[in-house]
Protein backbone atom coordinates (compact mmCIF):
# COMPACT_ATOMS: atom_id res chain seq x y z
CA UNK A 1 0.00 0.00 0.00
CA UNK A 2 2.43 2.68 -1.17
CA UNK A 3 0.87 6.11 -0.89
CA UNK A 4 1.74 9.44 -2.38
CA UNK A 5 0.51 12.27 -4.51
CA UNK A 6 -0.61 9.93 -7.29
CA UNK A 7 -3.08 8.26 -4.90
CA UNK A 8 -4.28 11.66 -3.72
CA UNK A 9 -5.16 12.60 -7.30
CA UNK A 10 -7.72 9.82 -7.24
CA UNK A 11 -9.34 10.88 -3.98
CA UNK A 12 -8.47 14.57 -4.21
CA UNK A 13 -7.69 14.50 -0.50
CA UNK A 14 -4.44 14.79 1.43
CA UNK A 15 -3.75 12.85 4.61
CA UNK A 16 -4.35 16.05 6.55
CA UNK A 17 -7.82 16.38 4.95
CA UNK A 18 -8.66 12.79 5.87
CA UNK A 19 -7.39 13.13 9.44
CA UNK A 20 -9.52 16.24 9.90
CA UNK A 21 -12.70 14.42 8.85
CA UNK A 22 -11.93 11.08 10.44
CA UNK A 23 -14.47 11.31 13.27
CA UNK A 24 -17.28 12.32 10.94
CA UNK A 25 -16.26 9.50 8.62
CA UNK A 26 -16.32 6.97 11.47
CA UNK A 27 -19.75 8.12 12.63
CA UNK A 28 -21.14 8.20 9.08
CA UNK A 29 -21.82 11.95 9.11
CA UNK A 30 -20.22 12.76 5.74
CA UNK A 31 -22.01 13.22 2.43
CA UNK A 32 -21.97 10.18 0.12
CA UNK A 33 -19.40 11.80 -2.16
CA UNK A 34 -17.02 12.86 0.61
CA UNK A 35 -17.37 9.49 2.33
CA UNK A 36 -16.40 7.66 -0.83
CA UNK A 37 -13.40 9.95 -1.37
CA UNK A 38 -12.24 9.39 2.22
CA UNK A 39 -12.81 5.65 1.89
CA UNK A 40 -10.81 5.60 -1.33
CA UNK A 41 -7.91 7.44 0.33
CA UNK A 42 -7.95 5.26 3.46
CA UNK A 43 -7.92 2.13 1.30
CA UNK A 44 -4.75 3.28 -0.45
CA UNK A 45 -2.88 5.00 2.40
CA UNK A 46 -1.49 2.74 5.15
CA UNK A 47 -0.90 5.68 7.53
CA UNK A 48 -4.45 7.02 7.26
CA UNK A 49 -5.75 3.48 7.53
CA UNK A 50 -3.81 3.16 10.81
CA UNK A 51 -4.97 6.57 12.02
CA UNK A 52 -8.66 5.93 11.37
CA UNK A 53 -8.34 2.50 12.99
CA UNK A 54 -6.83 4.01 16.13
CA UNK A 55 -9.55 6.65 16.37
CA UNK A 56 -12.18 3.93 15.95
CA UNK A 57 -10.53 1.94 18.73
CA UNK A 58 -10.57 4.95 21.08
CA UNK A 59 -14.27 5.48 20.34
CA UNK A 60 -15.17 1.83 20.82
CA UNK A 61 -13.12 1.29 23.98
CA UNK A 62 -14.59 4.44 25.55
CA UNK A 63 -18.01 2.83 25.12
CA UNK A 64 -16.89 -0.21 27.12
CA UNK A 65 -15.96 1.58 30.34
CA UNK A 66 -17.80 0.20 33.38
CA UNK A 67 -20.77 2.29 34.45
CA UNK A 68 -20.83 3.78 37.95
CA UNK A 69 -24.03 3.27 39.95
CA UNK A 70 -25.27 5.03 43.08
CA UNK A 71 -24.05 3.59 46.36
CA UNK A 72 -26.55 1.40 48.16
CA UNK A 73 -27.26 4.07 50.80
CA UNK A 74 -27.75 6.80 48.18
CA UNK A 75 -30.05 4.59 46.18
CA UNK A 76 -32.08 3.89 49.32
CA UNK A 77 -32.35 7.59 50.11
CA UNK A 78 -33.53 8.33 46.60
CA UNK A 79 -36.13 5.60 46.74
CA UNK A 80 -37.42 6.86 50.09
CA UNK A 81 -37.66 10.41 48.75
CA UNK A 82 -39.47 9.22 45.66
CA UNK A 83 -41.97 7.30 47.74
CA UNK A 84 -42.52 10.32 50.03
CA UNK A 85 -43.18 12.60 47.05
CA UNK A 86 -45.23 10.27 44.89
CA UNK A 87 -46.53 7.40 46.99
CA UNK A 88 -50.08 8.75 47.41
CA UNK A 89 -50.64 8.03 43.72
CA UNK A 90 -49.24 4.52 43.77
CA UNK A 91 -52.45 2.52 44.10
Amino acid at each position, binding site marked *: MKDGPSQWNESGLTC*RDVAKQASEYLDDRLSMLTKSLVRSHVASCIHCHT*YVGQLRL*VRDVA*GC*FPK*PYPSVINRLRLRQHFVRCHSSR*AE
Partner: protein
Amino acid sequence: MNADAISYTESIGYNPPMTRKSSAVKSPSLTKAEDNVIARLKRGDEGAFDALVSQHHSALIRMAMSYVADREVAEEVVQDTWMAVIESLDRFEGRSSLRTWICGILIHKAKDRGVREKRHTTFSAFESYDEDSDQAVDPSRFQQSGEWAGHWAFPPQPWDDQTPEKLLASQQAVNAMQRAIEALPATLKQVLILRDVEGVDAKEVCEMLNITETNLYVRLHRARERVRVAVEAYLEGRKQRE
Protein backbone atom coordinates in the same frame (compact mmCIF):
# COMPACT_ATOMS: atom_id res chain seq x y z
CA MET B 1 -38.38 30.67 23.36
CA ASN B 2 -36.26 28.04 21.57
CA ALA B 3 -36.20 24.36 22.50
CA ASP B 4 -32.90 24.65 24.39
CA ALA B 5 -34.11 27.52 26.54
CA ILE B 6 -37.37 25.69 27.22
CA SER B 7 -35.47 22.58 28.25
CA TYR B 8 -33.19 24.57 30.57
CA THR B 9 -35.91 26.66 32.20
CA GLU B 10 -38.12 23.61 32.58
CA SER B 11 -35.20 21.84 34.21
CA ILE B 12 -34.87 24.47 36.92
CA GLY B 13 -38.62 24.41 37.57
CA TYR B 14 -39.31 27.79 35.98
CA ASN B 15 -42.33 28.06 33.72
CA PRO B 16 -42.78 31.63 32.45
CA PRO B 17 -46.33 32.62 31.47
CA MET B 18 -45.61 32.58 27.74
CA THR B 19 -44.77 28.87 27.84
CA ARG B 20 -47.86 27.97 29.86
CA LYS B 21 -50.05 29.03 26.95
CA SER B 22 -48.32 26.56 24.70
CA SER B 23 -48.19 23.76 27.24
CA ALA B 24 -51.25 22.09 25.72
CA VAL B 25 -49.29 21.47 22.54
CA LYS B 26 -46.71 18.83 23.37
CA SER B 27 -43.47 18.75 21.46
CA PRO B 28 -42.75 15.59 19.48
CA SER B 29 -39.59 15.23 21.62
CA LEU B 30 -40.97 12.29 23.60
CA THR B 31 -41.22 8.77 22.26
CA LYS B 32 -44.06 6.48 23.26
CA ALA B 33 -41.67 4.60 25.54
CA GLU B 34 -40.74 7.82 27.33
CA ASP B 35 -44.40 8.80 27.64
CA ASN B 36 -44.98 5.47 29.33
CA VAL B 37 -42.03 5.94 31.70
CA ILE B 38 -43.20 9.39 32.71
CA ALA B 39 -46.74 8.20 33.32
CA ARG B 40 -45.41 5.40 35.54
CA LEU B 41 -43.15 7.80 37.44
CA LYS B 42 -45.98 10.24 38.07
CA ARG B 43 -48.09 7.34 39.36
CA GLY B 44 -45.34 6.60 41.93
CA ASP B 45 -44.00 3.44 40.31
CA GLU B 46 -40.76 2.70 42.21
CA GLY B 47 -39.60 0.19 39.63
CA ALA B 48 -39.78 2.86 36.95
CA PHE B 49 -37.74 5.20 39.12
CA ASP B 50 -35.11 2.54 39.84
CA ALA B 51 -34.82 1.85 36.12
CA LEU B 52 -34.49 5.57 35.40
CA VAL B 53 -31.63 5.91 37.86
CA SER B 54 -29.88 2.82 36.50
CA GLN B 55 -30.19 4.15 32.98
CA HIS B 56 -28.89 7.66 33.50
CA HIS B 57 -26.74 7.69 36.64
CA SER B 58 -23.49 6.89 34.86
CA ALA B 59 -23.86 9.72 32.34
CA LEU B 60 -24.72 12.16 35.10
CA ILE B 61 -21.66 11.25 37.18
CA ARG B 62 -19.41 11.64 34.17
CA MET B 63 -20.99 14.93 33.17
CA ALA B 64 -20.69 16.24 36.73
CA MET B 65 -16.99 15.35 36.69
CA SER B 66 -16.48 17.83 33.88
CA TYR B 67 -17.58 20.63 36.21
CA VAL B 68 -16.12 19.49 39.52
CA ALA B 69 -12.77 17.76 39.93
CA ASP B 70 -13.65 15.61 42.90
CA ARG B 71 -15.55 12.33 42.38
CA GLU B 72 -17.10 12.63 45.83
CA VAL B 73 -18.44 16.11 45.02
CA ALA B 74 -19.76 14.79 41.69
CA GLU B 75 -21.67 12.07 43.57
CA GLU B 76 -23.21 14.74 45.81
CA VAL B 77 -24.19 16.87 42.80
CA VAL B 78 -25.81 13.89 41.11
CA GLN B 79 -27.65 12.90 44.29
CA ASP B 80 -28.98 16.49 44.52
CA THR B 81 -29.97 16.23 40.87
CA TRP B 82 -31.99 13.08 41.43
CA MET B 83 -33.71 14.69 44.42
CA ALA B 84 -34.63 17.66 42.22
CA VAL B 85 -35.90 15.33 39.50
CA ILE B 86 -38.18 13.61 42.03
CA GLU B 87 -39.49 16.95 43.29
CA SER B 88 -39.98 18.49 39.81
CA LEU B 89 -41.49 15.49 38.05
CA ASP B 90 -44.98 16.98 38.05
CA ARG B 91 -43.66 20.10 36.33
CA PHE B 92 -42.06 18.16 33.47
CA GLU B 93 -44.14 18.87 30.41
CA GLY B 94 -42.31 16.84 27.79
CA ARG B 95 -40.97 19.71 25.71
CA SER B 96 -37.59 17.96 25.68
CA SER B 97 -36.66 14.33 26.18
CA LEU B 98 -36.50 13.07 29.76
CA ARG B 99 -32.73 12.63 29.52
CA THR B 100 -32.22 16.17 28.23
CA TRP B 101 -34.37 17.50 31.06
CA ILE B 102 -32.46 15.56 33.71
CA CYS B 103 -29.12 16.64 32.22
CA GLY B 104 -30.30 20.23 32.26
CA ILE B 105 -30.90 19.99 36.00
CA LEU B 106 -27.50 18.33 36.46
CA ILE B 107 -25.64 20.97 34.48
CA HIS B 108 -27.33 23.74 36.44
CA LYS B 109 -26.37 22.20 39.79
CA ALA B 110 -22.91 21.13 38.68
CA LYS B 111 -22.04 24.60 37.39
CA ASP B 112 -23.12 26.15 40.69
CA ARG B 113 -21.10 23.66 42.66
CA GLY B 114 -18.16 23.94 40.28
CA VAL B 115 -17.94 27.67 40.88
CA ARG B 116 -18.01 27.14 44.63
CA GLU B 117 -15.40 24.38 44.40
CA LYS B 118 -13.22 26.29 41.96
CA ARG B 119 -10.33 26.64 44.29
CA HIS B 120 -10.15 22.85 44.55
CA THR B 121 -10.62 22.17 40.88
CA THR B 122 -7.77 21.03 38.67
CA PHE B 123 -6.61 23.29 35.91
CA SER B 124 -8.01 21.09 33.18
CA ALA B 125 -11.66 21.71 34.07
CA PHE B 126 -11.25 25.44 33.53
CA GLU B 127 -8.64 25.24 30.82
CA SER B 128 -9.39 27.88 28.29
CA TYR B 129 -10.08 26.31 24.98
CA ASP B 130 -10.10 28.23 21.74
CA GLU B 131 -12.38 26.44 19.29
CA ASP B 132 -11.27 28.50 16.34
CA SER B 133 -7.54 28.13 16.56
CA ASP B 134 -7.01 24.68 18.04
CA GLN B 135 -6.28 22.02 15.40
CA ALA B 136 -7.43 18.52 16.22
CA VAL B 137 -4.32 16.79 14.88
CA ASP B 138 -0.96 18.39 15.62
CA PRO B 139 -0.10 20.20 12.34
CA SER B 140 3.58 19.32 12.72
CA ARG B 141 2.70 15.68 12.03
CA PHE B 142 2.06 16.63 8.37
CA GLN B 143 4.40 17.86 5.66
CA GLN B 144 3.96 21.62 5.43
CA SER B 145 5.24 22.25 1.91
CA GLY B 146 6.48 20.68 -1.28
CA GLU B 147 5.07 17.84 -3.35
CA TRP B 148 4.20 15.94 -0.16
CA ALA B 149 2.43 18.83 1.58
CA GLY B 150 -0.46 17.43 3.62
CA HIS B 151 1.05 13.94 3.75
CA TRP B 152 2.03 12.41 7.09
CA ALA B 153 5.49 13.56 8.22
CA PHE B 154 5.22 11.59 11.47
CA PRO B 155 2.58 8.96 10.78
CA PRO B 156 0.83 7.02 13.55
CA GLN B 157 2.55 3.70 14.26
CA PRO B 158 0.37 0.59 14.38
CA TRP B 159 -0.59 -0.50 17.87
CA ASP B 160 -0.11 -4.11 18.95
CA ASP B 161 -3.36 -3.86 20.93
CA GLN B 162 -5.53 -3.22 17.91
CA THR B 163 -8.89 -4.55 19.01
CA PRO B 164 -11.08 -3.22 21.83
CA GLU B 165 -10.67 -6.55 23.65
CA LYS B 166 -6.86 -6.41 23.54
CA LEU B 167 -6.73 -2.77 24.59
CA LEU B 168 -9.21 -3.35 27.41
CA ALA B 169 -7.11 -6.29 28.57
CA SER B 170 -4.29 -3.86 29.32
CA GLN B 171 -5.40 -2.13 32.51
CA GLN B 172 -2.60 0.40 32.18
CA ALA B 173 -3.61 1.33 28.63
CA VAL B 174 -7.17 1.77 29.86
CA ASN B 175 -5.90 3.87 32.77
CA ALA B 176 -3.98 6.03 30.28
CA MET B 177 -7.21 6.52 28.32
CA GLN B 178 -9.22 7.38 31.40
CA ARG B 179 -6.58 9.83 32.63
CA ALA B 180 -6.58 11.48 29.20
CA ILE B 181 -10.37 11.82 29.29
CA GLU B 182 -10.24 13.29 32.80
CA ALA B 183 -7.63 15.81 31.63
CA LEU B 184 -9.75 17.09 28.73
CA PRO B 185 -11.14 20.64 28.91
CA ALA B 186 -14.80 20.55 29.98
CA THR B 187 -16.17 21.41 26.52
CA LEU B 188 -14.35 18.45 24.96
CA LYS B 189 -14.93 16.06 27.86
CA GLN B 190 -18.70 16.53 27.81
CA VAL B 191 -19.09 15.59 24.15
CA LEU B 192 -16.80 12.56 24.43
CA ILE B 193 -18.58 11.32 27.52
CA LEU B 194 -22.07 11.76 26.13
CA ARG B 195 -21.37 10.55 22.60
CA ASP B 196 -18.75 7.81 22.99
CA VAL B 197 -18.85 6.71 26.62
CA GLU B 198 -22.61 6.92 27.10
CA GLY B 199 -23.67 6.38 23.48
CA VAL B 200 -26.10 9.30 23.37
CA ASP B 201 -27.40 10.14 19.91
CA ALA B 202 -25.64 13.14 18.29
CA LYS B 203 -28.84 15.14 17.94
CA GLU B 204 -29.65 14.71 21.63
CA VAL B 205 -26.12 15.69 22.66
CA CYS B 206 -26.53 18.90 20.65
CA GLU B 207 -29.82 19.59 22.39
CA MET B 208 -28.38 18.97 25.86
CA LEU B 209 -25.33 21.12 25.35
CA ASN B 210 -27.00 23.73 23.13
CA ILE B 211 -24.48 23.33 20.32
CA THR B 212 -24.74 22.69 16.58
CA GLU B 213 -23.82 19.37 15.04
CA THR B 214 -20.81 21.03 13.44
CA ASN B 215 -19.60 22.18 16.88
CA LEU B 216 -20.23 18.72 18.25
CA TYR B 217 -18.04 17.00 15.69
CA VAL B 218 -15.27 19.59 15.89
CA ARG B 219 -15.11 19.06 19.67
CA LEU B 220 -15.57 15.31 19.49
CA HIS B 221 -12.78 14.90 16.98
CA ARG B 222 -10.42 16.98 19.11
CA ALA B 223 -11.33 14.99 22.20
CA ARG B 224 -10.83 11.64 20.47
CA GLU B 225 -7.50 12.79 19.02
CA ARG B 226 -6.20 13.88 22.44
CA VAL B 227 -7.13 10.51 23.91
CA ARG B 228 -5.55 8.72 20.93
CA VAL B 229 -2.33 10.64 21.46
CA ALA B 230 -2.31 9.67 25.14
CA VAL B 231 -2.73 5.99 24.29
CA GLU B 232 -0.08 6.32 21.58
CA ALA B 233 2.37 7.84 24.08
CA TYR B 234 1.67 5.10 26.61
CA LEU B 235 2.06 2.25 24.09
CA GLU B 236 5.24 3.70 22.61
CA GLY B 237 6.67 4.11 26.09
CA ARG B 238 5.77 0.52 26.86
CA LYS B 239 7.52 -0.68 23.68
CA GLN B 240 10.68 1.15 24.64
CA ARG B 241 10.62 -0.39 28.11
CA GLU B 242 10.36 -3.95 26.70
